[in-house]
């Protein structure tokens, strides 16, 4: 131990000096800390979606080729989007269900645009763990409720794409969209 060398100066400068010294040292270290935190912010922010990704936030879908009972798969924000024209029978089936018995209570009206009840637009992303449910393509398994069926963990959705059975907690999400004409919608 080199006691000659390593004094903190307490004996030399008295209590008053020590306090001033400590204050300046603490202030300097705090400034360094604040600076380090400020630098970290942009380092984190750079991982958020970039401007070009955010710009691709809307998709236009042409509905004219979709017959009643048919569905198409397209993409919205790099994820599958299901657009289905429901048949009268499917609408009736959906309306028959009492929403209060559902896991995620919603009526078909709430999930469609006024006066366009036959157009069901949902994300093709199972609310359980994000697989793409079957049922949009011709001849795919539509599950026991006649809507969509997720093969990953067996979630079944009904004709209004509401969760009826299986582990998924929510109905298939309905994105924001609007009709730009009778046969076209703009999603996003």
């Amino acid at each position, binding site marked *: *131990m*080199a006691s*000659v*060398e*390593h004094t903190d100066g307490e004996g030399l400068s008295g209590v008053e000096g020590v306090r001033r010294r400590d204050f300046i*040292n603490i202030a*300097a270290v705090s400034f*360094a800390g604040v600076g380090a935190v400020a630098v970290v912010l*942009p*380092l984190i*922010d*750079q*991982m*958020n979606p*970039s*401007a*070009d*990704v955010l710009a691709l936030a809307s998709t236009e879908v042409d509905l004219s080729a979709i017959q009643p009972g048919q569905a198409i798969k397209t993409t919205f924000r790099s994820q599958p989007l299901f657009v289905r024209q429901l048949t009268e029978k499917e609408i009736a089936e959906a309306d028959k269900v009492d929403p209060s018995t559902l896991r995620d209570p919603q009526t078909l009206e709430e999930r469609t645009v006024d006066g366009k009840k036959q157009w069901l637009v949902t994300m093709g992303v199972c609310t359980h763990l994000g697989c793409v449910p079957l049922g949009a393509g011709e001849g795919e398994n539509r599950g026991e409720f006649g809507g969509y069926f997720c093969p990953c963990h067996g979630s079944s959705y009904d004709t209004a794409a509401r969760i009826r059975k299986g582990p998924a907690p929510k109905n298939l999400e309905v994105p924001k969209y609007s009709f730009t004409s009778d046969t076209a919608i703009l999603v996003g």
Partner: protein
Amino acid sequence: MSFPWAEHYTPKHPLMQWIDEKLPLPRLVYNAIGAGYPVPRNLNYFWNFGVLAGLALVIQIVTGVIMAMHYGANTLVAFGTVEQTMRDVNAGWLMRYAHATGASFFFIVVYLHIFRGLYYSSYKAPREMVWLLGLVIFLLMMATAFMGYVLPWGQMSYWGAKVITGLFGAIPVVGEPIQTWLLGGFAPGNASLNRFFSLHFLLPFVIAGVIILHIWALHIPGSSNPTGVEVKGPQDTVPFHPYYTAKDGFGVGIFLILFSIMLFYAPNYLGHPDNYIEANPLSTPAHIVPEWYFWPFYAILRAFTVDFFFVPAKLLGVLAMFASILLLFFLPWLDTSPVRSGNYRPTFRKFFWILVIDVLILGYCGGAPAEEPYVMISQVAAAYYFAHFLIILPLIARFEKPLPLPNSITEAVLNRYNIQGEQDALPGMGSDPQPSNAG
């Protein structure tokens, strides 16, 4: 570590005690850059640049890892992804400019660190290994910087890659196979870009590893100091922490201010406009130059214009350029003067400053177009460069009469502040006029 009076690590908190028993990492840090490392008390600001170089490497690794998150190593998209990072990624412009400016600052700091070593002869025994490892770091930095410059795939990237790999083509017989092997093709292309990206990502971590060795080797004899006189006793040293951590903290602040001025107000000043043109294998820029930190070496490369019998000038230039760096590895055995510090070597000091000016001239010529009078100037400057290290230094060591050295570091410090009384009272002062283990 090597000084018996170094403070010993005694963990106070039980958690630190527990960690120190299992993995003595706290002890290692304490002995490396904490209170456990006694450092000469008379270091001047030139001793700040080692820590600053470490900081510059950290800045490069952090911003570089982020750039890699947004980069596409494919000749079709590389230029575009860098541009997109600048325009669309959140704070992307900051990351890119910090990385580009950071490279320049890394070299500025390292060059100052090297010239400090040259002036104070820090390469001399017992610190030869520190010097040699430092040169390894320098070589790795140059390779990393060169490959990094290729990644944006601008015109200078492409033609720089072509010209530098073309240097290997100057080697007889095996040159061309080596060049195509380096590039993975006959000209820089996708294969080159991908391997450069991979290595550019890897090498900084290798540098970090060699830095650990560099510091380790430094801690065996301890730091040198401006007098060049070895530490004689406890009165000559202070613990690294808090004395030099505080001084380095101030140095870091100044470094960051200068770095920020450059980064925020002149980020393209040290760059070349041609690198904002996407690589075009069909059209060479009028005036190809590497980044500024390679200019002195580039000037040496271009200074050879006359064939030496059967050796073509091109090969001579390549050999001389590599020799200009490799000769530094022999420096500890070329300069045999027992006195280290340039402060006590009047002749050496004059030639040292000539060397500094010489290297600046070489740098200027290296950045200038390859036409007269720059080629002639760089020929004279390059001749001096080789003569300085290979001829003049050994001769000075033989014939120079050094000034009297202080008896100890403490004596030098006290003389500086004119404190007479205390000086006589200090213990442990030998009257050895020269460091006994130099030479």
